């Protein structure tokens, strides 16, 4: 019994100390990642951390391990710990309403980075995402151009799982662009494991089933890498165009080598930075922007060493 | 027997084949309420196949099986096997109540469970009902476990009780108590009891009538036992009746190669080529055997001999030293069930001789052994499960046959084996001894020890060594006295 009392007393002391800590006007921002097994979320984390440092905020990080329940726990833990603001990459859009209700009660500002909240939700400070539809439109158009340059009109796609909202938007944009520019999407294969090895196999299968395909639309980074690898093995490097969304050191290298013709960069670091800036403004009582849909900038092989490209890449992954 | 009683089980002209082999070629079998019926037959005669057809585990090819309860409908048949079918980690009460749960969702109510179990057990053993209800099944003795199983079977309303060698693991006292219970069940509750055993003495003690099956056919159909002599029974089972009366004239080598087994307050010198019998309940002999085959964790025995360690540290070391081991517990300690016969036979040789490759010559080696043992096998590449129990047992002996061994340890090698096969195994044991191998042989059947051994070390039910009987003092009563076990 005594030990329990002691433990409670100690826990209380810690909480009080933390509360006191929060009093001295130094804000803490928490970043809740859906999982850390994808580079992307680590890069967002980097952006949040960098911006927090710039703004004089403390930084803490949680991982939801792709579980909505863990995500909710993380938010509660963060609030209990005295965190002032949250930047989140949610496990899914649909997992957000209870979270937002809770944070609204607690009056903690929250900004989304990468994936937005469920449509119709309003109880959040800001949502910084890529404009998937616009990007799909642009990448579809460019992919079709590549196919035409190579004397064909058939294109293939290595897609994210189509149960994801961003994947559906990408596809919608791309389809419209293909139709408008006279290309046919002859096959779309969805990934399960998001690994390069799987993408290589899928690209090979795609080309076996549809030998007339002249360009491949890669919806995620590993897809571009896998497609480039498959083409290299078949001696078709450059003869079939490859575009990819996301961007990473690996795909940038492939772009330089001419194995990929264009990358639509998803500004992971930038999203983290922008989201952090928005919650900071909210804490300061300044005006915030609720919807920030960033169109993903295209960098082609020829421009990779330009200043503009370097600025873009700085907002993609940590240098 | 009243002839106007309706039979609980009536089997007529039953046929069954597995592939090309006809296992049953016309079996008749009738069980009346209130009788104790001995079901006899050699290994592979078709007893177990018939039982499995009656219980519905196997489909018949042809013939009639009529099951009729005097109460109307189909009578419940409960089979109690030699190996216990209790869940070791559950209590006796739970074990009994388990079969009464109406469905998986039935709540477990301890009080009513215990009451029901108590009631069931009281019917046959009020003492046990009083003491054992909340003990785990694993803590029971073999006999108690069997009683619990029978109680459980009866509590479900079984009208036919099928006992498959229930006495194999029981002491004399336990056997006697079981028989009292069985007789009472037959007379008071009018239950039909089928008793499968290889022990002539017990059959005479307990049973009223007997049916003998031989090569898949009924040769004796429900004849009162008083009408048959022992020799007639053995003859009808197709077993050689002659008993090797004259002992073999082995000259024991006094010179060397012998060992001394030292135990608590005991010291047993054993010469090369000598057959040492171990008699008594499992506790004592199994401790000595564990030391000999290298499985003992903490031992009270040790071996005193030249070029031997005091105790082999593992079965591997024991085998490499030349100590063989044959167990009657074929399923657990004997047969490699998923490997073909050839691997089963040669496994010991490969270890003993440190063979690294599977040789082509092993085929002939195995065929030779199979032939020498008259092993009835389809092919040496078949799985051991295609063999009858007795043939599986011979397979285990084959492992050690014709190898230069220092010692072979037999652990109830004739358990569940018919008389014919037993005789063959005795012969093999004698041959091994004849080649100078020390044979240590534990059996719960005192008669066979008395027949074959040069000396017998008797253990009591507590596992203490009670005395060493030299051949000239062999005597069934003396041995029964020392061990507390009947033959």
């Amino acid at each position: 019994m005594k030990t329990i009392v002691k433990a409670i007393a100690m826990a209380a002391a810690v909480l009080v100390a933390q509360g006191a800590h929060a009093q001295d006007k130094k804000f803490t921002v928490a970043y809740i990642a859906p999982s850390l097994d994808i580079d992307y979320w680590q890069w967002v984390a980097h952006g949040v951390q960098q911006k927090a440092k710039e703004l004089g905020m403390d930084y803490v990080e949680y991982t939801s391990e792709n579980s909505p329940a863990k995500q909710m726990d993380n938010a509660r833990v963060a609030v209990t710990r005295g965190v002032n603001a949250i930047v989140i990459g949610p496990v899914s859009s649909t997992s957000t309403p209870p979270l937002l209700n809770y944070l609204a009660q607690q009056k903690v500002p929250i900004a989304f980075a990468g994936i937005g909240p469920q449509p119709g939700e309003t109880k959040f400070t800001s949502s910084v995402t890529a404009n998937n539809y616009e990007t799909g439109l642009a990448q579809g158009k460019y992919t079709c151009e590549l196919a035409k340059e190579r004397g064909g009109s058939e294109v293939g796609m290595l897609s994210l799982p189509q149960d994801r909202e961003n994947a559906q938007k990408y596809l919608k944009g791309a389809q419209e662009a293909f139709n408008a520019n006279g290309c046919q999407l002859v096959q779309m294969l969805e990934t399960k494991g998001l690994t390069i090895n799987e993408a290589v196999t899928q690209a090979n299968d795609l080309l076996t089933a549809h030998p007339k395909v002249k360009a491949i639309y890669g919806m995620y980074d590993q897809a571009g890498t896998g497609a480039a690898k498959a083409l290299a093995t078949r001696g078709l490097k450059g003869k079939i165009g490859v575009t990819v969304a996301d961007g990473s050191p690996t795909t940038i290298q492939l772009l330089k080598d001419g194995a990929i013709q264009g990358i639509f960069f998803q500004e992971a670091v930038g999203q983290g930075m922008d989201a952090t800036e928005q919650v900071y403004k909210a804490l300061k009582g300044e005006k915030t922007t609720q919807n920030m849909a960033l169109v993903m900038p295209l960098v082609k092989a020829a421009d990779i060493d330009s200043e503009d490209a370097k600025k873009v890449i700085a907002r993609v992954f940590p240098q | 027997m009243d002839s106007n009683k309706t039979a609980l089980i009536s089997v007529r002209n039953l046929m069954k084949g597995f592939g090309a082999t006809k296992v049953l070629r016309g079996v008749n079998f009738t069980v009346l309420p209130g009788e104790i019926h001995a079901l006899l037959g050699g290994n592979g005669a078709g007893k177990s196949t018939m039982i499995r057809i009656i219980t519905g585990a196997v489909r018949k090819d042809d013939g009639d099986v009529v099951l009729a309860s005097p109460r109307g409908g189909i009578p419940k048949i409960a089979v109690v096997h030699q190996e216990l079918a209790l869940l070791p980690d559950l209590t006796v009460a739970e074990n009994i109540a388990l079969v009464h749960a109406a469905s998986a969702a039935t709540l477990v109510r301890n009080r009513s469970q215990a009451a029901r179990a108590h009631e069931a057990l009281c019917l046959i053993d009020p003492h046990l009902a009083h003491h054992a209800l909340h003990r785990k099944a694993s803590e029971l003795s073999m006999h108690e476990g069997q009683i619990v199983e029978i109680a459980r079977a009866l509590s479900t309303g079984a009208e036919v009780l099928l006992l498959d060698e229930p006495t194999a693991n029981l002491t004399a006292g336990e056997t006697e108590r079981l028989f009292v219970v069985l007789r009472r069940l037959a007379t008071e509750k009018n239950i039909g009891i089928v008793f499968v055993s290889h022990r002539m003495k017990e059959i005479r003690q307990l049973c009223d009538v007997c049916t003998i099956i031989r090569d898949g056919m009924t040769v004796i159909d429900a004849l009162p036992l008083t009408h048959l002599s022992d020799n007639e029974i053995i003859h009808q089972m197709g077993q050689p009746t002659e008993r090797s009366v004259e002992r073999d004239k082995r000259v024991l080598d006094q010179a060397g190669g012998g060992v001394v087994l030292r135990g608590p307050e005991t010291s047993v010198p054993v010469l090369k080529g000598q057959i040492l019998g171990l008699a008594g309940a499992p506790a004592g002999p199994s401790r000595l055997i564990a030391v000999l085959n290298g499985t003992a964790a903490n031992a009270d025995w040790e071996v005193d001999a030249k070029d031997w360690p005091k105790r082999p540290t593992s079965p591997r070391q024991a085998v490499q030293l030349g100590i063989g081991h044959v167990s009657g517990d074929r399923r657990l300690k004997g047969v490699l069930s998923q490997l073909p016969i050839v691997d089963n036979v040669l496994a010991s040789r490969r270890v003993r001789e440190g063979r690294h490759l599977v040789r082509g010559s092993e085929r002939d080696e195995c065929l030779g052994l199979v032939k020498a043992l008259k092993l009835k096998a389809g092919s040496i590449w078949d799985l051991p499960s295609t063999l009858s129990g007795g043939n599986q047992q011979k397979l285990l002996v084959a492992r050690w046959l014709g190898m230069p061994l220092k010692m072979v340890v037999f652990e109830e090698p004739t358990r569940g084996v018919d008389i014919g096969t037993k005789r063959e195994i005795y012969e093999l044991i004698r041959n091994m001894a004849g080649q100078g191998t020390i044979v240590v042989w534990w059996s719960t059947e005192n008669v066979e020890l008395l027949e074959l051994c040069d000396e017998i070390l008797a253990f009591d039910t507590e596992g203490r060594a009670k005395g060493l009987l030299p051949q000239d003092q062999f005597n069934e009563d003396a041995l029964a006295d020392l061990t507390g076990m009947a033959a």
Partner: protein
Amino acid sequence: MTTKATSMTSNDKTAPPPKSPSLLSVYRSELAIAIACVVLLVGVGFFVPAALSSGNFANILQASAPLVIMSLGVLIVIITGGIDLSVGSIFSLTGMVTALAMANGFSDISASLAGLGVGIVFGSINGALITLVGLAPFVVTLITYAVAASLAFIVTNGRSLGVNSPDYWLFNSGEFIPGLPNFILFCLIFTVALEFVLRKVTAGRWFYSVGSSPMAAYLLGIPVKRTRFAAYVISGTMASFAGLLTVSYILNAEATAGASLMLQAIAAVVIGGASLSGGSGSAIGAVLGALMITIIQNGVNLIGINSFWQGSVTGLAILVAVLIDRFSHR
């Protein structure tokens, strides 16, 4: 395993000694899987003729190589009656360690050996905890599965790593024997070697003995613990080798690379006729099982069925394989 009943009773002394079972009867269930693979391929070819092109065969072989090698390792463990859940994580961690070593200036060979060390170390840990401490294989390999998976993230902070060594691709796609790419060569070597060990080497028979009846095997003097230990080390090492092959192929190491492979490897072994209760299975069967899984994936992609159906189709294949196995042994 049934051959014609040649009775060996004492009576027929004149009967000739029985012949060894023919290869056809020994490999009966393997033949059934091989036929099933061909049927599947032809079925896909009906929809997409290119499925039967040599290019597609090459794709299938390349895609199946890591799974084939991993399955062979898992097979050994399953024959001994165990299970190895850690192979997928070992596969991933091997890649990360190798790529990391290369990025830090190690030569191709020493980096690969470091990668292979992952499998040996984790296999040994599995084996030691199972045989010496006596923990259940499922629990032990569940632990190492989790640890190796997290280590795969830890070593590079979750980032995937490219391999820049110019010649490393030769390990997978080069040709020690002209005309035969190395990944096929490795698969052939491992399959033949393992099949030989399992059938013709005493230690190979021990794997079956231990899986079949551990107590009986122990009493026979078979070194049960050593045999089981060896099984886990082999399994870990093979998983590592498969990991190296994949890194060499795509010149990239990813922390999640092997995540889906563990269940596929177990499935391949089961399709190949092994029983999860131990004591049965063959190397050729496991390889055919791995090929069948790859052919299914390939077919689903070629026909353009939603790839989420792959799991269901593979599940169905396992069911059919197990049912065939069950009824052919009745």
